[in-house]
């Protein structure tokens, strides 16, 4: 099991604290989670909490890749 950095737990916790209270997350077989449910799982750092953090990490990796692609394309355009 990959270790999750402390700052990643904190970032996700802050994101969830800012989440509109009226919406819920349907997370596969884990069912429906309210904002409070999500904060509880993050506090416990259990399997559901881990999934939430892993989703956040995936989200950031996606943007990093997209930015790198964009930078590469811009470099290619400049050289052309």
């Amino acid at each position, binding site marked *: 099991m990959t270790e999750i950095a402390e700052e990643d737990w904190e970032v996700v916790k802050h*994101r969830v604290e800012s*989440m*509109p209270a*009226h*919406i*819920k*997350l*349907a*997370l*596969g*077989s*884990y*069912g*429906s989670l309210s904002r409070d449910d999500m904060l509880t799982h993050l506090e416990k750092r259990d399997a559901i909490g881990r*999934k939430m953090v892993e*989703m*956040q990490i*995936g*989200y950031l990796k*996606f943007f990093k890749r997209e930015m790198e692609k964009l930078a590469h394309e811009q470099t290619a355009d400049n050289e052309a």
Partner: protein
Amino acid sequence: MSRLLITRPDHDDVTAYLHAWSGKVIEEARRHGLEIFDLKGERANRKDMESIIRDKQPVLVLFNGHGNEKEIAGYNDDTLISLGHNENLLDRKIVYSVACSSAKELGRKCTDSANCSAFIGYEEDFAFYYDPNRLSRPLSDAIAAPNLDSSNQVGISLVKGNDAKESFRMSQNAFRKWIGKFMGSKELEAPYVLQTLIHNMMSQSLHGNGGSKI
């Protein structure tokens, strides 16, 4: 006439949403003249599913509901397909499964060894945000719409006669379109919906023969 089997349990919020939204795929299937076996609610059980598959031999099977890496579930999480037990029921079929993580092992192995034609699904949990105030009208829920609309494009494309690879591409394009829209949105829910769109898009996969079609 091509035959479609679709399972639509509705025993909790998640499956109620999948049940409602996959109605759009059924509408498209009707428009294209498919014979439809709609196992909804309590009928999304193993006995009825096995009976339809054996007697009617549908070429296209769409699973809604929960699951895991080795299983696809139906009503009240009754196991419908279980790796190592009855995945051979998917032989010569094109499958789309929203069931969480079912592409990871079940999808991969049944296309490798058990002659399933193609399996489109998700390597991780399928996730979406929704507004519980819309539970009685899931189709009007703008927060759930992006993920469920993107997911629907697989089934919609398949019933139109496109192959599995094209159908996968259509769904990926839909995810990207919604991602683009939500990146520019100032709505409070936008960053959260955006995260699930990216998660689902990256987790969606196609196993087997991409040229498979009904």
